[in-house]
């Protein structure tokens, strides 16, 4: 980490709405392979709009809530920099380029999707995508699990959805409640009597 972020007294750093939009748009255009590292690189290292500690804190909020990390982060950072309008500008800007690309890809696919070379390439791309998601699952598991019981909750969730065809919300609420109760707040252990 370099110098601390200049936070003016009386409030967080204010950045103009146009700046917020522009910078998130640039991230939206360039962030091949997932925006989170790009967000950190630009917002923290390059622009110094946030320090690393704040970024990690906002990332952890983003990861705890439903929604994609990238869009949740855009909302939190946008709000911090420029209020509610900043949150709206940031999420629109980060989605816009990828959305336009996919709009074009959808049209191309509608016209050429059944050509043999396209289906061959897509077969390989789909297989690679599964490897990619599995790697994020491994990373998420390493970072977020707390104890062996969690593997039972993972297995229950997978079985519920894939084997017993519960809907995702049923599995989420059912297993989720059980897991939350399992991890319920314990009373702080009484100061253990030292011998």
């Amino acid at each position, binding site marked *: 980490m370099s110098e601390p972020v200049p936070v003016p007294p009386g409030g967080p750093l204010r950045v103009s709405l146009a700046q917020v939009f522009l910078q998130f748009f640039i991230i939206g255009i360039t*962030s091949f392979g*997932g925006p989170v590292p790009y967000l950190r690189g630009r917002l923290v290292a390059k622009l110094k709009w946030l320090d690393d500690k704040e970024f990690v804190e906002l990332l952890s909020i983003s990861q705890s809530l439903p929604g994609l990390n990238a869009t949740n982060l855009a909302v939190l950072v946008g709000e911090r920099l420029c209020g509610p309008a900043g949150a709206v500008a940031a999420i629109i800007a980060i989605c816009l380029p990828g959305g336009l690309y996919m709009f074009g890809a959808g049209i191309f696919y509608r016209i050429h999707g059944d050509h043999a070379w396209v289906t061959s390439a897509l077969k*390989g791309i789909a*297989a690679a995508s599964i*490897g990619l998601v599995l790697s994020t699952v491994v990373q998420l598991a390493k970072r977020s699990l707390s104890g062996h019981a969690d593997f039972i909750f993972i297995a229950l969730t997978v079985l519920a959805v894939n084997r017993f065809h519960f809907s995702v919300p049923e*599995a989420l609420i059912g297993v989720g409640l059980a897991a939350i109760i399992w991890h319920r707040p314990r009373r702080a252990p009484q100061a253990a009597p030292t011998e």
Partner: protein
Amino acid sequence: MDQILAVIRVFSYLSLLTVGGGMAAFPEMKAEVVGIHHWVDFSQLIHFYSLGQMVPGPNMMMIVPIGDWAAGPLGAVAAVAAFFGPTAVLTYVVGRLWKRLEAWPWRASIQKGLAPVSVGLLLAGCFTMAKGTISGVETASISAGVLLILLQYKINPALLVIGGGIVGLLSF
């Protein structure tokens, strides 16, 4: 108009299921988009998901062509707004309350409890997609190869997805 309303209803519902990542909503997306509404078929859904891994930005932009096919360009806009709106509002509200929530003992419990469920839902999404994708030794090797490379080396995943496409082009 009915189609646009259906797009909004489906994607705002899916929005709240993306716990841990977009893939968590995949089984339900298949049920809604393929099974109930027939906007795309299963292999098209897989193709859109996969193409979405190669474009920059948030990795669920696959919803754009689905919205477009269902209800035209306005449907695409509706899909994005519906898919990102609910979680954005939730994040905004919780983000503002976070400092106060920090003292709430159940917050840590909820985070710890949802962690294994997120992992499970992502895996379930992977398995659902794998059923339509892994059809033999070649596709299984591509998936396993990408997984192992990403766990071992720091490399941009989009390059590996493109690499998978090139392997597919040459071998299928």
